[in-house]
C-alpha cells in the first residue's frame, strides 16, 4: 500500500498530471484541493502522509497554507510544486516548513524523486 498523498493545485490540468504520475508509481491520491483553505480542511479530515502544494492559488496561497498546516501538525510533510522558482520564494517556502520544492514544468522522474525524499524526512 503506497503512501497517501493530498494534491492541492488550482489547475485541474496539473492535478490530473500529478495524479497520473503518482498513482502510476503506486501512491494513493487520498484527496484533492483547489486552494489553501481546502488544503487545510482536507488535511484535517484525511491526515495524508504528504501534501503536494501549488503556490499561487485563489483564496489562500501555498505559503500561507504551509504556515497554517505546520501549526496544526508540526510533522506535516509538504512538497511545494510551483512554477514560481524565484530564489526568495523557494527559501520562504522552506522556511515556513515545506520539505522541498519542485519547479513546474517537471519531468515525472523529478517529481517521484522529490516525493520519495519528502516522505522519508
Amino acid at each position, binding site marked *: 500500500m503506497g503512501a497517501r498523498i493530498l494534491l492541492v493545485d*488550482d489547475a485541474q490540468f496539473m492535478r490530473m498530471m500529478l495524479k497520473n504520475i503518482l498513482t502510476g508509481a503506486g501512491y494513493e491520491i487520498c484527496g484533492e484541493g483547489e*486552494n489553501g483553505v481546502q488544503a487545510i480542511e482536507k488535511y484535517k479530515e484525511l491526515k495524508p502522509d504528504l501534501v503536494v502544494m501549488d503556490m499561487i*492559488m*485563489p*483564496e489562500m496561497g501555498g505559503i500561507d497554507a504551509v504556515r497554517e498546516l505546520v501549526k496544526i501538525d508540526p510533522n506535516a510533510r509538504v512538497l511545494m510544486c510551483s512554477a514560481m522558482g524565484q530564489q526568495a520564494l523557494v527559501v520562504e517556502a522552506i522556511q515556513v516548513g515545506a520539505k522541498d520544492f519542485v519547479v513546474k514544468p517537471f519531468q515525472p522522474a523529478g517529481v517521484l524523486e522529490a516525493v520519495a525524499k519528502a516522505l522519508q524526512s
Partner: protein
Amino acid sequence: MPEEAVVQVGMAEFMVAVPPAKLGCFGVGSCICIALYDPLAKIAGLAHVMLPSDQTSADLGRSVTSAVPALIAALEQAGAKKERLFARLVGGATMFTFAGKQEGPAPLGERNTITARATLTELGVEIRAEDCGGALGRSLELDPVDGTLAVWSAFQYIRWI
C-alpha cells in the same frame, strides 16, 4: 463582416456620419460604445470610450463624462437636434475574471456602463437599448440611413438593437 465598408471608430475616438457612410467598432471589450442618432436629420454619432472619467487627459474621447457632451456638440454642429437624439449602448464587458475574492473597485466595463447611463440621463438623452456586460467581446455597426445598429460577437449571431 463588412468591416471595410465602414469608418472605424477607434478607442478614444468619436465620430459623426451621414449616409452613405457607416460607423463601426470592432473587437470591443471593456470599452463602452455610445451610439446616438437623430432619426429626422439622419445623422449618427458613435463614441468608443475607454474610461468612466478622466480629469487629467486633454483627450475628450477617452472618458464617458467628456466624450458624451463632445459627441452631442459635434452632432448638433452637423445639423442634428439634441432633443431628437436617442442613445444605445454596446460593450462594457468584463473579459477577464480572476478566481477568488475580488477586492477593489468594480470591473472597468461595469463602471463604464454605469457612468454612460448616468451621463446620458443627466443630459436628457433617452437610452433605448443596451447590449452590455458579460464576458463577451463585441463588434458593432451603425447605419445613419435608418439608425440600424448591428451587434455581433465571436460565437453569436448578429443581432439588431
